[in-house]
């Protein structure tokens, strides 16, 4: 499975199982991510993608299986633990607050301070400067750092969330369907951002159910179906059609193929 043995994976998820009561959400999923690669996790709704990444980011504890981080077994008790280890998750809802400024969002929960003791205060000047600079690196020129996030487009918000994760030293970046609500142009901006981040040596886990978006940036593709992995393929070893078939569980889509004319 691990053909990239020259790069030890940053995170290796081994035979992860997750049960909610009598529902088996994940039935033994293995997955790994190395530095500088974009590993796409595909699957239809209900396949277990969300549960899986929540396990990886410390929201859920796996019922069975091991999470290895840089070769050590980890036991994430909370999202904070995994964040501190270097796994950053950009959820669909982005963890952005529209009424707050870009700077305040960027540093939410991790504000830089100056002074000490009772005079310790939020260093807004530094925070503003860093925010402008990091956003510029991602190709977004903010009007002002105190611009409310609510005034940004969906793609720009996504980029703020990614820039924030990168700035705070993420080694692995989990993107939960970052393109699902975006238009064409904004999607291409986000895909370009993923590419840029990957080139900086960060491992990107890209969750999507859009095969074309996955093919655009992915190095490897893992398909989840009904809580199980259907296999992992390298870039170039698989065609978009095959990927699409895998995602839909093969037979079901084949039966529909005729009536849909292969346009899914």
């Amino acid at each position, binding site marked *: 499975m691990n053909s990239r043995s020259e790069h030890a994976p940053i995170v290796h998820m081994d035979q992860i199982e997750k049960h909610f009561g009598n529902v088996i959400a994940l039935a033994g999923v293995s997955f790994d991510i190395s530095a500088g690669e974009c590993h796409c996790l595909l699957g239809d709704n209900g396949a277990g993608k969300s549960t899986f990444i929540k396990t990886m980011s410390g929201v859920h504890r796996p019922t069975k299986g091991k999470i290895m981080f840089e070769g050590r077994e980890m036991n994430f008790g909370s999202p904070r633990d995994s964040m501190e280890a270097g796994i950053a998750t950009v959820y669909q809802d982005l963890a952005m*607050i529209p009424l*707050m400024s870009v700077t305040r969002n960027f540093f939410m929960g991790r504000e830089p301070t100056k002074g000490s003791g009772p005079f310790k205060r939020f260093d807004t000047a530094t925070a503003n400067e860093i925010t402008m600079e990091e956003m510029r690196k991602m190709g977004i020129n903010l009007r002002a750092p105190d611009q409310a996030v*609510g005034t940004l487009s969906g793609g720009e918000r996504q980029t703020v969330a990614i820039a924030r994760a990168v700035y705070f030293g993420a080694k692995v970046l989990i993107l939960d369907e970052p393109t699902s609500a975006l238009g064409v142009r904004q999607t291409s901006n986000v895909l370009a951002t993923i590419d840029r981040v990957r080139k900086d040596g960060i491992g990107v886990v890209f969750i999507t159910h859009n095969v074309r978006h996955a093919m655009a940036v992915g190095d490897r593709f893992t398909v989840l179906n009904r809580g199980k992995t259907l296999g992992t393929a390298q870039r170039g070893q698989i065609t978009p059609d095959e990927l699409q078939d895998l995602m839909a569980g093969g037979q079901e889509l084949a039966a529909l193929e005729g009536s849909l004319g292969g346009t899914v």
Partner: protein
Amino acid sequence: MPTDVAIDERIKEESFFSRMMKRPELGAIAGVILVTVFFLVTADPAMFTLAGFMNFMSPAAQLGILAIGAALLMVGGEFDLSVGSMVAFTGLFFGACVVTFGLPLAIAIPATLVFAACVGAFNGQIVLATGLPSFIVTLAFLFILRGLSLVGLKWATDGSTQLRGVRDAVEGDWLAPIFSGEAFPALFTRMAEAGMIDTFRNGTPKVQGIPVEILWFIVIALLATYVLQRTPFGNWIFASGGDANAASNSGVPVRRVKLILFMVTACCAALVAIITVLDSGSTDARRGFQKEFEAIIAAVIGGCLLTGGYGSAIGAFFGAIIFGMVLIGLTYTNIDQDWYLVFLGGMLLIAVLFNNMIRKRVTGER
């Protein structure tokens, strides 16, 4: 993709005016100006003398201390409808400490604040543990605390709903001047001698000092603004109120923030209780009646959104001043006092409509 992108040509340069429009406290400042102009035209000029100023600032300050607490809590995304009852309840506790148990202020005041913080924390804990809206939980406490104040007062006084004798009990206590009476009397006497301020015929100044609650009000407003604007905790308050889920995913200790805010709000109520009880020398069960609504209205006039995550302490400061000016200002005019209530409701309605518009501008909603 180039790393340097040209400035988007579709974004218009913002004018100073439209930037000002985005400040949450703008509405309240405009309101103060409007009300001032109104009373300059209609009221007896005595309203805008130093004595008149102290006259309307005093009730404004008492309400304002509550309003700033309420504003912080609202920015943090919660309500506390029990602050009015809390004033009566902590007033009873404080009165009992001083009169019934004869404790010195140095013990009674910290004890009252700690007691208030505990009640606030209990309130907050129920909200956070159950996930119920704070509106309904604190509405229950509005009645519970008011009822307990009545029962407690009867118990402490053998059947009366008023506890007297506070003034005698604190006579000569070194802490009393910080929480009651007027500050800087020497300065005002000096100014009177120099003819800078009005005096009575015998030479004593008409205003003997600044009522301490006004100083507390200003200090608390500045402190709250500093915390909101310039500390990480302030950022956490905005974040917790804006979207608790997003905030906690980003590592903000949302529960702790909200719990602290409930405690701060309760302590603000306790401070008002201490000041008013010392001032009047007694405590009664009707103290702080309906103050919770006035405090929330002042906070809303000050730009706080009912949905949380947006607002300012300075706004609440000016909101409370508007209240004081109208409440007292009407007595300087020929207008019937009871217009006060009409004004109160009207002001709230305008403020909410205005805030709604501002929110859309800030978030760029269309």
